[in-house]
């Protein structure tokens, strides 16, 4: 099989061996969950339950409030204790529904009747996906139903399932492809038919030969789906890099995949779509890799949305070692968490616990112009220049130099010998440029 890739990028150490051979386990139903009404890009959902109300797992508790918004569901059976602002992993100040579990252990899914989806119309499928609160589970959390009905002037001809999982440590997508192979493949078929495209690719990095093999076997009789092996290189899973590698198409600067006729979805999203359409199960739980040298027993866990990190970490034997850093997401793009009270949300692909934080505080040197960041930037930007412009508040110049094209993959900061927090500076710059554009 030919191995495809993109230009530039980096090769960080993977550390996937901690969890890649551990099948997905189900976390026991937690005693309480905190479900934020904003877990997606777009406008927050509106609460439709009252304090004190009994709710069932899968019941809608927050309603979509706009074109780009999403539904939120209860993830356990129980009682709404409060609806108030609460800690949010992204630091958002948003309403959160606090549900305490009812005494008896509760099965998560109420309606287990499966149905065939082939007879459903496109509109029906998209409506189910919307009502099921499905958003991009790779971490971007863009509402999936919006992606599946692109504007008329952007004809789509190809769907790509993103099975790269290029972040070190994370193995959730990998395990989903192994443990739920057929469901993922069915999910791809649902998306493909809904989009009305003739061709679908499943892109998998070649550090997961077992997934490539299993997915290839499962799709061998489906002519429109093709599994492609991609070189293990970060950030292979970034949409634009993935499209470049698989189709050799370049998304225009400032554009979206649909500008080159492509829709990309994550493995977890495909699985969620299958479960929603065929099993009537909305997005109330997700697979999360709990890993790192700071946790006793690394695991791949199926976790109800809204479960506190503390409960997850307790289940994995607790934190071990000193100077711990807890990261939501992968080590390259994830964000550090200041309190274990924050809940798992739809975009949580990993909980990474790293110990021995002394080396976290690295000495920062001035930029010595080594050019390493330029050599690895997959978007062909000049990261150190953009960071410096941002630091100096030269937003207009930063905009001209293409700061908004940064995908925040962190490759530049990974290689920087001066340990300059390049991504942080650039994020600030992007925020300011966007503010000024308004």
């Amino acid at each position, binding site marked *: 099989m030919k191995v495809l890739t993109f230009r530039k990028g*980096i090769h960080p*150490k993977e550390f996937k061996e901690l969890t890649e051979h551990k099948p997905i386990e189900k976390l026991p139903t937690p005693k309480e969950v905190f479900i934020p009404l904003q877990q997606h890009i777009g406008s927050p959902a509106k609460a439709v339950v009252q304090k004190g109300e009994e709710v069932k797992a899968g019941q809608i508790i927050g309603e979509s409030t706009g074109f780009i918004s999403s539904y939120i569901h209860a993830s356990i059976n129980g009682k709404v204790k409060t609806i108030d602002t609460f800690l949010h992993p992204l630091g958002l100040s948003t309403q959160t529904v606090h549900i305490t579990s009812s005494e008896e252990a509760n099965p998560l899914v109420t309606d287990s009747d499966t149905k065939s989806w082939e007879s459903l119309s496109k509109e029906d499928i998209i409506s189910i996906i919307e009502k099921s609160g499905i958003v991009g589970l790779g971490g971007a959390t863009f509402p999936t139903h919006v992606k599946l009905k692109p504007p008329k002037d952007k004809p789509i001809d190809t769907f790509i399932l993103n099975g790269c999982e290029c972040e*070190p440590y994370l193995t959730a997508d990998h395990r989903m492809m192994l443990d739920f192979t057929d469901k993922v493949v069915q999910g791809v078929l649902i998306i493909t038919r809904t989009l009305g495209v003739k061709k679908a690719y499943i892109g998998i990095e070649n550090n997961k030969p077992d997934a490539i093999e299993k997915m290839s076997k499962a799709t061998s009789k489906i002519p429109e789906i093709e599994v492609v092996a991609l070189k293990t290189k970060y950030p292979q899973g970034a949409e*634009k890099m993935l499209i*470049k590698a698989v189709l050799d198409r*370049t*998304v*225009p*600067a400032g*554009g979206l995949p649909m500008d080159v006729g492509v829709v990309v979805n994550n493995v977890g999203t495909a699985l969620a779509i299958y479960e929603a359409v065929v099993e009537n199960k909305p997005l109330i739980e997700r697979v999360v890799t709990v890993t790192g040298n700071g946790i006793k027993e690394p695991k791949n866990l199926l976790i109800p949305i809204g479960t506190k990190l*503390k409960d997850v*970490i*307790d289940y994995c034997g*607790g*934190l071990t070692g*000193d*100077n*711990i*850093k*807890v*990261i939501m997401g992968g*080590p*390259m*793009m*994830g*964000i*550090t968490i*200041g*309190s*274990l009270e924050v809940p798992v949300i739809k975009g949580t692909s990993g909980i990474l616990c790293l110990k021995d934080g002394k080396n*976290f505080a*690295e000495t920062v*040197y*001035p930029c*010595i*112009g*080594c*050019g*390493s960041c*330029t*050599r690895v930037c997959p*978007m*062909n*930007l*000049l990261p*150190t220049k953009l960071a410096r412009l941002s630091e100096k508040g030269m937003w207009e110049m930063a905009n001209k*130099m*293409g700061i908004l*094209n940064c995908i925040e993959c*962190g490759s530049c*900061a*990974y*290689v*920087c*010998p*001066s*340990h300059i*927090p390049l*991504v*942080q500076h650039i994020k600030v710059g992007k925020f300011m440029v966007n503010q000024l554009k308004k």
Partner: protein
Amino acid sequence: MEGKKTNKLEEKILYLSPSPHVKSGESVPRIMWTVVITLMPATIMGVYFFGIRALWVILVSIATAVITEASIQLMRRKKITVYNGSAVITGLLLALCLPPSIPYYAVIIGTFFGIAVGKHAFGGLGYNIFNPALIGRAFLQASFPVKMTTWTPTLLQQKCVDAVTTATPLGLFKFEKVTTPYVDLLWGNVGGCIGETCAIAIIAGGIILLVLRYADWRIPLSYLGTVAILGGIFWLINPEQYPDPLFHLLAGGLMLGAFFMATDMVTSPSTPLGSWIFGIGAGTLLIIIRLFGGLPEGVMYSIILMNSVTPLINMFTRPKILGEKK
């Protein structure tokens, strides 16, 4: 009231930091000290050929560089960063491109000028426009023109010929049309600056730098390549008047300059295309100075001049953003 909050999880401080949370392990000190190590072959050969006095010149220069940098940082109430090795490189590099007979006071003056004016006047590491070692050398060339062009024969040569002074291979050719055997040039048994004579030692260290990617290979390749091609053209036109390309490459300070000075990360372009332009420009300037200038050697000025246009080169060679239409 209950005193302590009970928590199933032991209270642990969670650290916060911006992403990414894993790093390559590369660091400025590691780069700098590696450069120092890769300069060791040339340094050792310099001491071998020019004796213990050469070693003293090197030590005086390094000590002056480190003390100057530390004092300036102390005076400006900045963090003292001499441990990162960059001052040591400047001191060492400057010493390697000085004649072995240079008086110690001149070494001190030159190094002080290089560090104080060439580096810290611009804001210190990372902000200087010119290679500090070359600024120090240019200052000495202007201040002590005779002392900077008085050459001693190597210890080996002294065994055969009884002479106090000699000329460099470039000087011999320019003023007397005498050629030097290639073996002597490669091996370094010729008059010249302390660390520039042994081409083999310089190339050995330089290649390590290139392999580790601590120097951009495009710069030495385009610099040396341009010198060879342009030098070759003139040699073909008139072999009597102009030296052959191999002589150009091996004689004088070109090897040291191409591998260790032109490649200085701070003062050379940071884009691939920029590196090519930098090397070709420096090579062209070198040939012009060597063949048509008043001096036999032009490495220093060719690099300094290209340093001055590096910010401009960086600006005009910005790579095209992925998906950008021009």
